[in-house]
């Protein structure tokens, strides 16, 4: 049944519309503004007044940052840690979840307790740092991958999913003499695409966005990921100047552009850092939300 709408109804609708428009503008403006600045000529940007559209369009800021060897290298590190971290993370987290989904697993109770406690208690950063150090993982690429390769919250989500797979599927494979290893790799993985996609995105985004492990464990420039480079750029204007200068051959140009370049370089570096996330955002939105729903249903 449809009730006639009163005047206060229209007022509420208008108010909501206004609030939502504000949310849209406030959320999007910083992104669009930075994008515009990164695509605008740096000498022109210093005059101010750039909003969401570049005034003097140029790719120069991007050319500059990619001419500096640090950025492509950091990009490769970020890509490597994301790809390797996601694949190994899925493998170790998924296999544990698969095992714990079996009621006939010997030691299941103890294993489950081992997994639950670290979800609520941790040793904190100091003992963790000392452990990593004693294992010789400082300034080692694998420090990005190994310590967090088993994600316990993700494991719970995967286990919940695996538990919903009908027993019959596995039973028939067992009758045919398949081992659990074969069942996991050849039967379970192919039919678990939705949960694998969700967890892969969880791990991938966390890997791409991670900066703290690099700040704690890595001092070597050649191993620093994009997030760290961006961090250096925003905390040290000088670093940005270095990046800017390395691409410029004309000294006069360089001196003139010194102060103006910093903001453009920062914005270009930022855009490059956030781009992969934006590109996969449509998938992210779909699968992440599915993920929290499963998580919240579980409680």
């Amino acid at each position: 049944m449809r009730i006639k709408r009163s005047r206060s109804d229209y007022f509420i609708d208008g108010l909501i519309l206004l609030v939502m428009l504000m949310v849209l503008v406030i959320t999007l403006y910083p992104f669009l503004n930075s994008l515009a600045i990164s695509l605008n000529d740096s000498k022109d940007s210093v005059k101010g007044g750039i909003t969401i559209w570049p005034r003097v369009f140029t790719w120069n800021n991007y050319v500059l940052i990619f001419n500096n060897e640090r950025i492509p290298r950091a990009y490769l590190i970020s890509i490597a840690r994301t790809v390797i971290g996601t694949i190994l993370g899925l493998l170790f987290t998924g296999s544990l979840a698969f095992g714990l989904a079996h009621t006939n697993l010997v030691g299941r109770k103890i294993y489950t307790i081992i997994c639950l406690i670290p979800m609520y208690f941790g040793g904190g950063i100091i003992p963790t740092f000392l452990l990593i150090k004693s294992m010789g993982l400082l300034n080692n690429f694998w420090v990005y991958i190994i310590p967090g390769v088993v994600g316990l919250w993700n494991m719970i989500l995967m286990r919940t999913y695996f538990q919903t797979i009908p027993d019959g599927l596995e039973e028939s494979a067992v009758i045919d003499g398949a081992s659990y290893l074969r069942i996991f790799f050849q039967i379970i993985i192919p039919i678990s695409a939705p949960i694998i996609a969700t967890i892969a995105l969880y791990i991938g985004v966390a890997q791409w966005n991670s900066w703290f492990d690099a700040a704690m464990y890595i001092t070597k420039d050649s191993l620093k990921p994009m997030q760290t480079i961006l961090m250096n750029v925003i905390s040290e204007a000088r670093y940005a100047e270095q990046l800017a200068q390395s691409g410029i051959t004309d000294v006069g140009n360089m001196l003139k552009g010194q102060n103006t370049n910093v903001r453009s370089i920062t914005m270009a570096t930022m855009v490059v850092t956030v781009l992969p996330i934006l590109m996969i955002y449509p998938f992210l939105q779909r699968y992440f939300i599915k993920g929290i729903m499963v998580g919240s249903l579980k409680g």
Partner: protein
Amino acid sequence: MSASNRDEVRLNRDKSVFARFIHQWDLQVLVIPSLILILVFSYIPMYGVIMAFQEYKLGEKLGFSEWVGLKQFVYLFSEPAFPRVLRNTLIISGLKILINFPIPIIFAVMINEMRAKQFKKVVQTVSYLPHFISWVVCATLMFDMFSTDGGAINELLKWVGVTKSGIPFFNRSNYFWGLTVATDLWKELGWNSIIFIAAIAGVDPQLYEAADIDGATRIQKIWYITVQTIKPTIIILLIFTVGGMLNANFDQIMMLTNQMSNAQLRETGDVIDTFVYRFGLQQMRYSFATAASLFKTVINFVLLLITNHVAGKLGDTALL
């Protein structure tokens, strides 16, 4: 996937635990490597926490240093910066609970009240976006927005006439609490509303129809149906939030203060986690910093127990 093969189970029941373990070696092989990694990377640091009661020196094995009892904690409580650190932690978390906890609920209710399906979808999609970017990127955007050199916020304030030369937001300690709340809201508003939007979607539509027949106004329907139905969700999330109160978002504060290198912001921006980081990793007072970190863990756990107890008293779903 319960016991996958009934014959196997029957067979297994007669065998010893060890024999069953060997028999299902292929299943154990899938879980044991991951469990070893958990034991190494989660349990060894947990054990390492006992260094809070020791005097760790560089090069010593974790947990094998000289015992000093509660000395580190005595140092901690007599450390002049510590009361300030506690105050900052409580105020930043408190403001976030007070402001940034209810706003996503209101946002979710508003989303639910929207009639234009397309526009609703656009707003949701856009509002979730900042959740997926790192605090490094977020800080970059915020520094630029709030900069005195052409930043949008300051341009706006100049235009309105509040300030002439712009306010150096990130260089004055008195704006920092507000900035943490505002930037946190910007980043997580949409994301934190998802769970409430989902809870509202589960409300029985018949309730609204019945209320229509009784002549309820829209506000009454929102308050007595929507909000009442999602109350358990609100309470559970509030418990989690209060339980993690001393965490105060390390990532955010580290980035907004340039990894605490901005001394101007230490007065209002130094929280327990950054304190641990500064003393532990920068000044290498490992045992002292671990004591501070353990203090936090204990208080957090007590908070969780208290809030859970309170929620239990209120007659709603308790957690533990």
